[in-house]
């Protein structure tokens, strides 16, 4: 599932994938990718090629592919770092329960989610989409947080300020003001990663949860 020029993700997902790969790699522990689509599996497999990575199919996307992807029903959860990209309604509570039972204290769960603005990204223009039946933030919170987990951080990629700069850059480019357009592009990049209220409006988010007793 090598990633080529044709497969590069949009910048929003790119940030999220690199962040999760970087974080997960620090633990030196086995990694589990809970992937709701081949899109996620492909990009994380390429990033974590040399890691001890198990890929679990959470939505039956892999049934027609010849790969070593584990269907959710056959999965034997193991401790380590989990990347959940991304939760869908059908398997939300199953996976949340597994994590609460299996995860060691202080272990991290990295969750990639697509917000409503993600629908504008190229990945959402044609099927198969990054996920089907995505969960709401409230459902995710209620499934994970009441027992044994707390939210460490939420990062959003391409927050509102960044989006405004990006739109300005596009408009300036259309008016042939390339020098100014480039400046706004880099203002956009600088403001790209957000936390707090801005993260809720970003097209792609990463939530970091930690297991606590």
């Amino acid at each position, binding site marked *: 599932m090598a*990633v080529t020029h044709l497969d590069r993700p949009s910048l929003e997902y*790119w940030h999220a994938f690199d962040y999760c790969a970087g974080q997960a790699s620090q633990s030196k522990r086995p990694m589990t990718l809970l992937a709701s689509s081949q899109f996620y599996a492909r990009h994380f497999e390429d990033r974590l090629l040399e890691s001890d990575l198990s890929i679990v199919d959470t939505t039956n996307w892999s049934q027609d592919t010849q790969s070593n992807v584990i269907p959710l029903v056959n999965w034997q959860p193991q401790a380590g770092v989990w990347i959940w990209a991304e939760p869908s309604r059908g398997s939300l509570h199953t996976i949340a329960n597994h994590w609460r039972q299996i995860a060691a204290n202080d272990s991290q769960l990295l969750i990639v989610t697509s917000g409503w603005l993600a629908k504008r990204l190229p990945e959402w223009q044609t099927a198969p989409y990054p996920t089907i039946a995505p969960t709401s933030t409230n459902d995710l919170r209620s499934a994970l947080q009441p027992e044994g987990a707390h939210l460490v951080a939420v990062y959003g990629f391409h927050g509102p300020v960044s989006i405004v700069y990006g739109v300005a850059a596009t408009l300036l480019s259309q008016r042939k003001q390339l020098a100014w357009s480039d*400046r706004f592009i880099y203002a956009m990049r600088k403001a790209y990663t957000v936390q707090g209220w801005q993260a809720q409006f970003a097209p792609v988010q990463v939530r970091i949860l930690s297991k606590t007793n």
Partner: protein
Amino acid sequence: MTLAEQIAKLDAWFDSIRSDDGYGGPVVHWWQNSLHYTGAGLDWRYEGIVHAYLNLYSKTRSQQWLEKAQRAANDLVRGQQDGGNYRFSAFEQNPHAAGTPHEAAADIALLAVAKALRAVSLDASIYIDTARKNIEQYYIQYLWNDKEHYFQDNPSGTNIVPNKAATLVEALLLLAEVTGDDRFIYQYAKPTLAAIVAHQVTDNPATDGAIYQLSRNGHFQPWFFPYYAARCVPALVQGYQLLHDEQLLKAAKQAMNFVHRHQYGDGSYAQIIYGPNKINRYPQWIAGNGDILRAFRLLEPYDYVTDLTLPEQWLFNHQHEHGPFHTAFGFNSQIHQRVPQQGKLPDLRDILPVAGWTDKAFLYLTDRFDGNDPIPAIDTAHQTITVESQLRGRRVVYVENSDSVVISFRDKPIYHWIKGENWADIRSRQLIWK
């Protein structure tokens, strides 16, 4: 410091950033940064690293330099994917494959090693086969535009980026030389050179000699980078040497006239020119200027001599104590383009050593090296360098030793790369920045 000492430090630093897969480290660029992914990048860094080692070998005849060039070429051989692409070959866009001009630059490195090995009657077939596979199965199969007769920058458009096409022309000419297959010259390199020349400005005094950064569907984008104009020159000169087409040499000279016109009094160059009085000067390259200097020197045999004293000083004065060069000056001004205030700390991205920029300085220094002084042995095992800089206006401290790179804010590490690891540990939103 003598040139030999400067080179010795560079060699020691490049050794320190190697893993079993190749040369790694974070990347900053005008276009984008790759701070998370720090594993081997099988990209244009190999062009400079391999040629630098081959320069040292040819000038000293010491076997160790040929072995280091071959070791680097082996990284590329091992990193080739089934389809001919190299893993992690996109430099600032890593960790992706199919980077342009990076895979062509890697091919140049492979073919240069092949030539050096053949010259001493050693088997070079694996390096030729690897480069050929990349060129045939990726560039020719996916990027050759048979209608327009040039190489596109990606398979899904009709855009051409002249400096990237020029790097590929260099690889094609080398491949033709080592295989004896003229098809690579006449079917592919020659028309691509013509397409590059067609992107040169000849009718506007402000940008005369500049080369359009790209065109899409025949629409030329008025981005003129002095650095990328210089990157076109080796292919134009080599094309001239082979084809004796005066137009190619003239284009190379005009391109460097444009570069020279955008040199500042301190020996630096502007980043990008859009038209009369429309310049984004910052960030100004430092390590990468090795490519500009090399382009000027390539033209010296053709009655084109420029005083390089100031540009050389600009480069040479920015070598870190442990070997690598500063990447740039004025990254902090990339958005507002105001002149950086004197006495203020440099931007972190300015001082960050990057393999794929420092290789260009390494290549230039070894070009200039006459081979008379011995390259001293440098022990960097216990050396730690500390550089103060700023990140988004806040003071941060960059610390590098043979094992790691750590960036701290108020004594707390916010970035930690253990050399050899594929991913850095980023603990601050401020550095989640592409």
